């Protein structure tokens, strides 16, 4: 086959004359199955994006609150930053430190997807809790005033609550991925 490519119309005629597919690549039922799978995937992707966005906003807000040194954490008191899809750690504001410790232990140790900002917030909080533990131990040994011990204990509880929230948001974002 040596088609004459000039003038313009000759090639067009030859291309139009090429044999076409007799059948589509798959039948209508397969098309429907693939369409349903695609729509399901798109729906899951939208849902995942929504979850990830919510979790990211929560993490960023917590990080900002911690970064700019808010004296008290209003979100702990009001529960305003709790994620909408999965229930947050129940009663974080009033929970006993032991309860929060147990909750923390329940989170996965290392998220599959590590965000540097979130990781920095987590390690920062853990460092500050460790420092407070040192201070508390020293204060108990030195038989410091009860009010001072209570203040340290309250600060530790507050930081623990913040850590629970950050880890919770991190886990949510991880699951959404």
């Amino acid at each position: 086959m040596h088609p004459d490519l000039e003038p313009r119309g000759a090639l067009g005629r030859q291309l139009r004359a090429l044999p076409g597919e007799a059948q589509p690549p798959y039948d209508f039922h397969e098309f429907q199955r693939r369409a349903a799978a695609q729509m399901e995937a798109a729906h899951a992707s939208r849902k995942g994006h929504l979850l990830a966005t919510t979790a990211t906003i929560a993490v960023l807000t917590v990080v900002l609150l911690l970064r700019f040194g808010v004296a008290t954490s209003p979100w702990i008191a009001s529960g305003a930053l709790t994620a909408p899809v999965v229930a947050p750690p129940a009663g974080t504001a009033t929970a006993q430190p032991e309860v929060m410790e147990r909750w923390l232990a329940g989170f996965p140790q290392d998220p599959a997807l590590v965000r540097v900002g979130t990781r920095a917030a987590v390690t920062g909080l853990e460092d500050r809790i460790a420092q407070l533990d040192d201070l508390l131990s020293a204060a108990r040994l030195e038989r410091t005033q009860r009010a001072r011990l209570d203040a340290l204990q309250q600060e530790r509880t507050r930081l623990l609550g913040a850590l629970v929230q950050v880890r919770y948001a991190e886990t949510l974002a991880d699951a959404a991925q």
Partner: protein
Amino acid sequence: MDTAVPDEVLARARLGDEAAREVIYRTLAPATFTFIRRVVGQRALAEDIFQDTMMALYERLPQFRGEAPLGAWLRQIALNRCLMYLRSPWQRARMRLEASELATGCAPNMLAVPGYRGDSIDLERALAALAPTARAVVWMFEVEGYSHEEIARAFGRSVSFSKSQLARAHVRLRAWFEPQEIRQSCTLI
């Protein structure tokens, strides 16, 4: 491709009747797939674009006003989907990467087979050997009857882009049909 779809079937399909939609599928799908395959070349990719095209058809069916045959309307959707793929930054980067491979005389989706005789290469094979953009330009100009201005608009490029793509494609197509005893030929993988 302008296989007629009865008005009554079209009306039922617009209302979501599955049987009517299946009739439309059976009527138009083979030609639509052939068209996409010609433009993009690779079968797997053509299947993906075909799936998107047919989904778009059923989604937009209620908006179809019947001013043109349904087949022509579907062909336009298919062409737009192919162009979306060809214009995507990923595809353009890939084409740049493969430009050096083209210099060897083998299209990116072809496999060099020593000893293949040039005189048995047909037009389909020659078309498949073109780069995707060149193939789309050839098809739009020669078969669909688009002008260079329209092709340039479709690709978001200049008129000279369309003209040079077509001229180079013609040169390459001619080269395929010249007797070549030594050339390493290519076959589709």
